[in-house]
């Protein structure tokens, strides 16, 4: 009986990992090409010149 439980548990774990991989694929796919919405800009922020800082 214990053997069946441990073998079944092992199979269930690896099936869950396959599902987890599918979830990770969705994360990548959903955000494909996206940056941080409303967050960090894609392009580097222009560096402040000393005259700007002085101003």
């Amino acid at each position: 009986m214990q053997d069946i439980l441990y073998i079944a548990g092992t199979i269930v774990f690896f099936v869950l990992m396959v599902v987890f991989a599918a979830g990770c694929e969705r994360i990548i796919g959903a955000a494909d090409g996206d940056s941080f919405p409303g967050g960090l800009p894609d392009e580097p922020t222009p560096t402040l010149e000393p005259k700007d800082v002085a101003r």
Partner: protein
Amino acid sequence: MSANDWLQLGLVIVALGVTVPLLGGYMAKVYGGGSAPLDRVFSPVENGIYRLCRIDPKGEQRWRTYALSVLAFSGISMLVLYGIERLQGHLPLDPSHASGVPAPLAWNTAASFLTNTNWQNYVPETVMSTLTSMIGLTVQNFVSAAVGMAIVVVLMRGLIRRRSSTLGSFWVDLTRTVIRILLPISIVAALILVGFGVIQDLTAPVTVHTLVGAHQTLPTGAMGSQESIKELGTNGGGTTNANSANPFENPTGFTNLFEIWLLLMIPFSLPWTFGKLCKDRKQGLAVLAAMAVLWIVGALLVMNVEAGGNSQLPKGVNQTASSTLVGGNMEGKEIRFGAAPSALLNSSATSTSTGAVSSASDSYTPLGGGVLLVNMMFGEVSPGGVGSGLYGMLILAMLSVFIAGLMVGRTPEYLGKKIQAAEMKLVAIYILIVPAIILGFAAVSISLSKGRASIFNPGTHGLTEMVYAFTSASNNNGSAFAGFNGATTYFNTTLGICMLIGRFALIVPVLAIAGSLGRKQAVPASAGTLPTGTALFATLLVGVTVIIVGLTYFPVLALGPLAEHFIFHS
């Protein structure tokens, strides 16, 4: 620390300094896709395996196919290993007449060796048959290490390749790693170890009569060949219960140093490989420097506090090293090694994912034991296990560029690849999983009577023993603190679950990150790009690693080893 202790530490550093460029450069050629040294020797063997297993050596896999291959290979391997353990009493090569391993222990051991953890809830010399050790456990020592190295190679390819949907073939990476890296080095290392006194035979255990008239059974077995891959593959599972403290496994001070060098060799060489493959040596050196700083600081801390002696002994007891006295905190340590060199092996083993020990961690001073625990809590990145150490550090590097990006308001980039929302979600999953299972399982176990029953020491030390067990299992380290009975159905099962989650629930997001990065185009460096091949970035990497561990684990460390330290000195 004595001059001898400093000399031994220096020898390990010098040996690594010589090895890292050589082995790192060699591995870059093995994984680079072009010709590699000794092709004439290795190619026929590999081609034979490819033909036998119907593998297309030029075939490439997308990240998800690669992940499915890893999961299928690992799942089947675990079931086969479990079957061998359960049926060993009916199989050949069983000179000690070992019966089948009980189901919970067999499952825990299968999970342990599959995940490169090598946690052992049993006495190896009496429980496992020679056949189980050779075709079950030792085979996993090779392939579990090779799986870790294959994963980091995929992550490197993801960072390096441009607009590529494929990242190599798992079967080819696995075969090349075993045939070209692990087997040749471990064969040479085994011969050296046997030459210096490690035993290697296939006879039954020997019963001897001691001088006082008692009977003692001496273990035998293929220890030299097991010992070499045990260290080289950062596995750590010993052929004897005392592991590398047993003189049959680790007979002299030289073999102790040799084993330390072996277990650090590949993890420290892989960043060099990384630098070579991305054609920017500074990138590899920055990661290598961060790993080296974390390792050396941890090792010096443990060596110093253990060489400093045990504060609980009466003041008249001389613990100072001299020509006639080893000196230091010698409880649970071997006189032939001394306090500091013993501490160097245990610290290096917990800094990698090696479960080997040459002294009893439970007998360390609270701070010494605490540092061993923290080494694992870093997530095994200093330098970590073979492959797993570098992919852990590269994940932390992505987190570091993200944090730096937040500070200055720029999109984070690593090796020209934009680190965007998808990668950061996967990085967050990677970083949160292990602390969640360590702290969750430890908290539940300490609240259950069946959990507390396994703790041999009360109070703060008992808490450390419990947390150490789950930290070791979840980080796939495998070293035991001792003073803790893990050989119950509850702990065999829960620790096994932690090992599996700590391995595969991290591998999957790493492969996904590799897949995501691999299909991106690299952007040219601009004035807003954070240079990642610099000492400043290495410092940032160390800082991020320490802060993450500090914020996550400080409460439990305060209740465990830190509280015990202050109680000792109150």
